[in-house]
């Protein structure tokens, strides 16, 4: 116990004195609320506001009424675009072609082809296209209804069945984005915050020739690994706590209900998130130590371990893609946590059996990694690469 305490105190002392590495470790936590604020703000203006859209009309003069309708909905002619936004709208290049015989066909009651030309795959064009479409549709419908009314037909006849859509998913797609982003950010925080400290205390010590000295001491390698892991993990836990607290505070300033998000970070959900993430922090540092102890140099460790950061970024994405998830995905580290976090953000009750199994799995894998690493540190291979 004296030994473990000494090892841990030394690791913490070194970690906290390396100001730059510590700042990097905690910067993710400090930046979290800013990121969340900015992203939510952008989403709110995009989905709620009715910003002007500038469209390149050809043949606008053939359908003045339609253009008027567009203008009512803040869909304006490209000629009026302010200088600042000119480039952006030129880039989006949304074109509407009104045929020459618009008025003629209208009076004859024939179908008119108005062409909307744009890159439908572009995310930035999504909202303008939607608005143009609905404007044209509603205009066309209102004319159609009027025609029927003039002929004495009840408009309701046109719609014998009305589908009432009731969305049971609480957040809208935008809110899902925000919560998914927050979830991914927390996972990244768990993985990245302890990274530099884990590398420094393993590959860094090897490079500074202090590891050999330590391995010559009457200490079991298990204690060494545990102390190093505890130190790096506690930094990432600290970072996550900062992240959660600051995010809770900053989310209070944004009206998330505008985008249909209902998640509120209350004490209960924060506790649930911490229960989820703390074992993951330990798992992440165990994984990082495992790889960086085997690297020959600091540089090599950095490049191998950086690959590990891909995990928290890729796994939630992959899960999003799979519609029909096999059950074991629930239990694995990272994927299990990521799905549970989604539930927490949606305000759904936490599935405690899933939480217990994924936590047990994470802890189990961490223990296995630690044991393997402790064994590896006894091997000659590690000693030989010391010199």
């Amino acid at each position, binding site marked *: 116990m004296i*030994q473990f*305490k000494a090892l841990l105190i030394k690791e913490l*002392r070194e970690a906290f004195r390396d100001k730059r590495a510590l700042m990097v470790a905690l910067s993710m936590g400090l930046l979290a609320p800013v990121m969340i604020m900015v992203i939510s703000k952008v989403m709110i203006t995009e989905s709620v506001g009715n910003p002007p859209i500038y469209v390149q009309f050809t043949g606008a003069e053939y359908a003045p009424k339609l253009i008027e309708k567009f203008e009512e909905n803040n869909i304006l002619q490209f000629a009026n675009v302010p200088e600042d936004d000119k480039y952006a709208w030129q880039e989006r290049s949304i074109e509407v072609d009104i045929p020459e015989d618009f008025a003629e066909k209208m009076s004859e009651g024939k179908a008119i082809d108005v062409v909307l030309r744009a890159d439908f795959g572009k995310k930035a064009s999504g909202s303008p296209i939607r608005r143009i479409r609905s404007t044209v549709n509603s205009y066309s419908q209102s004319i159609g209804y009027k025609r029927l009314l003039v002929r004495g037909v009840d408009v309701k006849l046109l719609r014998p069945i009305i589908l009432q859509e009731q969305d049971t998913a609480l957040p809208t797609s935008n809110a899902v984005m925000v919560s998914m982003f927050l979830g991914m950010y927390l996972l990244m925080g768990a993985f990245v915050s302890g990274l530099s400290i884990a590398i420094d205390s393993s590959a860094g010590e090897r490079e500074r*020739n*202090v590891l050999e000295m330590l391995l010559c001491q*009457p*200490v079991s390698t298990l204690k060494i690994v545990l102390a190093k892991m505890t130190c790096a993990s506690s930094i990432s836990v600290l970072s996550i706590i900062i992240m959660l607290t600051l995010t809770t505070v900053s989310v209070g300033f944004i009206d998330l209900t505008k985008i249909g998000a209902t998640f509120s970070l209350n004490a209960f959900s924060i506790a649930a998130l911490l229960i989820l993430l703390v074992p993951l922090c330990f798992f992440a540092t165990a994984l990082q130590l495992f790889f960086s102890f085997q690297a020959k140099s600091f540089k090599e460790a950095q490049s191998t371990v950086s690959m590990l950061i891909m995990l928290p970024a890729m796994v939630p994405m992959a899960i999003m893609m799979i519609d029909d998830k096999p059950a074991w995905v629930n239990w694995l580290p990272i994927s299990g946590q990521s799905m549970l976090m989604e539930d927490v953000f949606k305000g759904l009750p936490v599935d405690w059996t899933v939480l217990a199994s994924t936590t047990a799995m994470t802890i189990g894998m961490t223990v296995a990694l630690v044991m393997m690493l402790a064994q590896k540190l006894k091997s*000659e291979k590690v000693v*030989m690469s010391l010199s």
Partner: protein
Amino acid sequence: MIEVNNLHKSFIDKKNTVKALDGMSFTAKDGEITGILGPNGAGKTTCLRTLYGLLTADEGSVMVDGINVLEDPLAVRKRLGIFPDKFGLYERLTAYEQVDYFASLHGMQGAKKKAAIEQIFKDLEMEELAHRKTVGFSQGQRMKVTLAQALVHQPKNFVLDEPTRGLDVMSTRVLRNHLAKFKEKGHCILFSSHVMQEVAALCDRVIIVANGKLAAQGTPQELCDLAGEKLLEDAFVKLIGSDEGVAA
């Protein structure tokens, strides 16, 4: 007491095999300073690393105070004060904190630990370094800190791999006096060096190592007599250069 019996160790690579130890045997007794001499690549460091239990010998055994290092490496390390061939310092810690760390690793605590640390700083005349961070220390100052952390728990056996490289004359003297004092107290001291005068002045017995095995051993005078030379340096060169029946 350190006993090394018939150690064999080969490093096998994909391309070639290096035989680092080839039947090395010697004994370092309590109350004596035993010097290891040997040219570069003779197997000194490999032998010492086997002694700490960092490497496992292919054949043979190492006993420290009657404990086999293969069976209980931690118990052996408890009885050793190690000054390794390559060493570094925790540059973000002060000298005092480093020595404190190693003292704690040896299970010391409380007032006893504090007294031991203060004693070693006093003995090695490095009190003014104690509360400075070790970043920027000179080679000699680094050596002192490493020595202090190797000796703070007053081990029964010292294993020092070239402890005087980079030390100035004053510090070398301090170290020599320190070692002599512990010899009087009955500690076993094993140290390697390349400085012949130092070995001649300090060591009770000298072990000469070449090609992974013992080439000769005895007091400095005996070795000179064996080789028929006046100076230990000449004797050393002769003893490792020719293996015509001088191996003891």
